[in-house]
């Protein structure tokens, strides 16, 4: 038992420490919160950020980035500045997108580009300054303005006004000033570990965190006036943005990546085991869970509500889960709480954490340990048979899996995983509620065997009781808030982030797991408002 405990306790999602600082040459004092962490100086817009930015700045809703290369995922996150780099493929896609977007914008939405009485060179210059500022997320330098205006005029000399406008927009959309988020920070003093970001840089972090999109004019104006340095102004702007409908985009991105929700729409199930399955059902699962999350955010807006809400959104494709719907429109049904309680009991989510032809206590147990408790179990060693036992007619899933993992070598980890996963046995591989499995009554009793939070371990019966335990857990709150901070930073957290992590975790628990409060505390944290100062060579 002790050895087994060691296996699990040895594998929580602890980030590797940053490189040790050479105290011999560095004049700066290392304390708990003064230490190195590596900031990324420039980050490519992700596909989602690119599309949202074009929507908000140019009114373009064609989502051209759907054809861009996928981002490499760092610990599941798509916005890692070190990993996201341009390739032959991406510059080709940028070109295609710039051509299509600029042509459509000039042809159909010219009022968003310019509002001049006469279509002339002066109008081109004002377009460069105004739209350029929205695309580059700061006022353009004199040099940038002059080179873009020169390009505009040169094009205008041998083409019509719309052509000059279109081509100039293509240049801006392919400029690194648009494609990357740059962070320079204010000039540091030699004894500083961190230096505050410049106003527009902080505004950009803020808007891509909360909106997954570019700052609007108000935020840019406040930022360029230097007012975001005032914590009250920063908080006020963040609150204004959280109240905007676009905030669902920023939060949605976190949930998508954290829970890998986009995997749901492509799920494939065995139609022998589940004749009701069709690709349309997988699409409906994805829509349904998106609506569930939006519903939680629109009402309680808390982690406990996410983990315990008994809302379920169903349409005719999903009529097997609740009877009240008809047609393709989704309707909200409040399910019996002893059946459905929270995110982990949503059909699409259970299907994602299920096998193609049966449920999967292992996948479900691992999810809880990994993503909610931040106690990632190690993967099975390569020599073992990890194919789940095939369904048969004589036994329950639980019996088969218990047999499957009874080996001593498996027990080390499965002793922690399976007792949690068995709690979801009232749900089959497509997330339908069941009282019996293969004709036998479902046994959904389980237990949390180990957690770093002393109060958490103990028995439960079924997912509803498990979710109630998790919803109250400080460890679960700490896990989620740290993940969100990591996502906000677009890089792994280092020693220098320790205090920000602690502060964000404390405030999230204090706020009852309110997600808006979490975002406000991330925005206010040192890690978010500053960037590290590189050690001088």
């Amino acid at each position, binding site marked *: 038992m002790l050895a087994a405990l060691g296996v699990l306790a040895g*594998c929580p999602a602890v980030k590797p420490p940053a490189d040790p600082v050479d105290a011999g040459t560095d004049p700066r004092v290392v304390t708990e919160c003064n230490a190195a962490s590596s900031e990324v*100086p*420039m980050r490519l817009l992700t596909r989602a950020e690119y599309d949202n930015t074009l929507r908000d700045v140019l009114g373009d809703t064609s989502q051209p980035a759907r*054809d861009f*290369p*996928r*981002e*490499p*995922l*760092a*610990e599941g996150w798509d916005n*890692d500045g070190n*990993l996201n*780099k*341009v*390739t*032959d*493929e*991406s*510059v*080709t*896609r940028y*070109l*295609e997108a*710039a051509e299509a977007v600029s042509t459509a914008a000039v042809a159909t939405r010219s009022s968003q580009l310019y509002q001049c009485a006469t279509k002339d060179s002066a109008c081109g210059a004002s377009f460069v300054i105004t739209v350029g500022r929205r695309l580059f997320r700061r006022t353009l*330098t004199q*040099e*940038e303005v002059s*080179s*873009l205006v020169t*390009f505009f005029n040169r*094009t205008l000399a041998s083409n019509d006004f719309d052509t000059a406008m279109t*081509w100039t927009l*293509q*240049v801006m959309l*392919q*400029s*690194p*000033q648009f494609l990357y988020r*740059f962070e*320079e920070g204010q000039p540091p003093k030699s004894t500083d570990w961190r230096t505050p970001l410049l106003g527009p840089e902080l505004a950009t972090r803020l808007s891509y965190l909360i909106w997954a999109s570019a700052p609007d004019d108000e935020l840019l104006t406040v930022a360029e006036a230097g007012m975001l340095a005032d914590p009250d102004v920063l908080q006020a702007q963040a609150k204004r943005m959280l109240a905007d409908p676009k905030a669902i985009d920023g939060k949605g991105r976190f949930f998508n990546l954290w829970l890998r929700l986009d995997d749901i729409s*492509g799920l*494939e199930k*065995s139609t*022998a085991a589940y004749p009701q399955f069709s*690709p349309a059902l997988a699409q409906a699962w994805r829509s349904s869970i998106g609506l569930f999350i939006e519903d939680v955010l629109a009402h309680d807006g808390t982690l406990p509500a996410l983990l315990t809400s008994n809302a379920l959104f169903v349409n005719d494709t999903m009529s097997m889960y609740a009877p009240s719907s008809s047609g393709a429109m989704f309707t909200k049904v409040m399910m019996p709480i002893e059946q459905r309680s929270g995110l982990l009991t949503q059909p699409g989510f259970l299907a994602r954490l299920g*096998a*193609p*032809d049966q449920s999967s206590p292992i996948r479900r147990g691992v999810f809880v340990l990994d993503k909610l408790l931040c106690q990632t179990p*190690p*993967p099975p*060693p*390569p*020599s*073992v*048979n*990890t*194919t*789940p036992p095939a369904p048969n007619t004589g036994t329950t899933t639980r019996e088969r899996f218990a047999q499957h993992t009874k080996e001593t070598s498996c027990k080390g980890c499965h002793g922690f995983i399976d007792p949690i996963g068995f709690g979801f046995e009232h749900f089959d591989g497509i997330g339908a509620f069941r009282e019996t499995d293969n004709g036998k009554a479902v046994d959904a009793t389980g237990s949390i065997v180990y957690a770093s939070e002393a109060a958490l371990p103990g028995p439960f019966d079924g997912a509803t009781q498990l979710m109630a335990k998790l919803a109250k857990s400080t460890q679960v709150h700490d896990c989620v808030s740290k993940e969100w901070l990591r996502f906000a930073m677009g890089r*792994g957290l280092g020693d220098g982030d320790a205090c920000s992590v602690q502060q964000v975790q404390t405030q999230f628990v204090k706020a009852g797991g309110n997600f808006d409060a979490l975002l406000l505390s991330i925005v206010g944290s040192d890690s978010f408002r500053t960037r590290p100062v590189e050690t001088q060579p």
Partner: protein
Amino acid sequence: MTRRSLSRRMVLRASGGLAVALPLLAHADPGPAPKRFVFCYQPNGVYVPQWFPTAGASESDFTLGPIHQSLAPYRQHCLWLAGLDMKVAVSGAGEQHQRGIGAVLTGSKINTGNFVGNDGTKAGWGSSISIDQKLVSMVGQTRVPSLQLGINAKERDVSGCVSYAGADQPLLPQNDPRVTFRNLFSDAGTPVDEVEKIRRRRGSVLDAVLGQITELKTRVGTAEKKRLDAHFTKVRELETRLTALPPGTCTTPSQPGAIDFETEAAMPEVARLQIELMVLAFQCDLTRVATFMFSDAKNHIALPFLNITSDVHNLTHLADPQVAVRDTWQAQQFASILGKLEMAREADGSSMIQNSLMFWGSDVSLGSTHSHENMPFVVAGHAAGWRMGRFVKYSGLNHNNLLVSMLQGFGGTATSFGDPAFCTGPLSGLT
């Protein structure tokens, strides 16, 4: 896919009445046919009991195993290899699948990084140029330097990449045949004078973009400068590509329809389209190098179109005979490429398979042990001038030796490829 035939330097009138042309290079003489290279990757090793041929009295006297039956018609074009080990992948950063896929074309160990492997170890990208990219610089410039084609190869980390332009410079596969089409044929079907206008405009716009990058570089730090330099290079290469003129006899396809390309069920259709587009690209001489990835290393997908409903990676761990069903399908894909290239004609009327080299391999040999010994490698085509139609057994030589043989087969003079500690020079007995 419907097609319109186009011959060299001709502008045809398509059925719709539009003038259709591929921009053509004014070659006075076609010269010798270009050499081409194709690599096919399949994940997680093979079903070893049915993989290797049964040797006979001589190297050319052997019996194909059940998996390779679809290659029987192309037997004289193929070389089955045994006894080559991927020793460079036995140790280093990452786990065996990651090390294997990162080494198969680079002959090098992978870097450390943040990609979590099967056993919790951390891996980064490949650490040096891959053989396909090395050959790109030797086969002559084309409009598209090389193709990286995916068939449900979704991982955006070391597990999802075989081609590297250099250390930490992954060339990730394109899974969407529509985008493959656009990369190759975007100007096809556009009237010639229109194409000229588009080119002038793109040249002008991209020059201005390069100006923006140069301006920005004056105001940023060292790390940013380095990345902006890389960005600058990519944009300049794009400009060159878009204004370079592809020569060749050509058939322009129309754009494939949208399909749900990142699903297991769509894999056969995606494979068919990607292979067809690659062959057309070869025929149009738009590119001369391609790598295919039939999904990712250590993936956890089923193959419903083969009635394999459980995770193939797990099946390879079990050495389950269903793996042979997967391998047989992979052999059919390889055979499909060989068949199409055998049919395709060069300008001088010869078969394209004479000037091509195809290589088919994996990241490990046997999934249940993750072994890198006795790798399942098949080579085909005559571009390297090797004696084909044989089953050749080596005794535990490094696979880097095969890679450097390929390099020499394309005219290279280097005597080592990849990590020199794992390369003792080209294989004997190939020519």
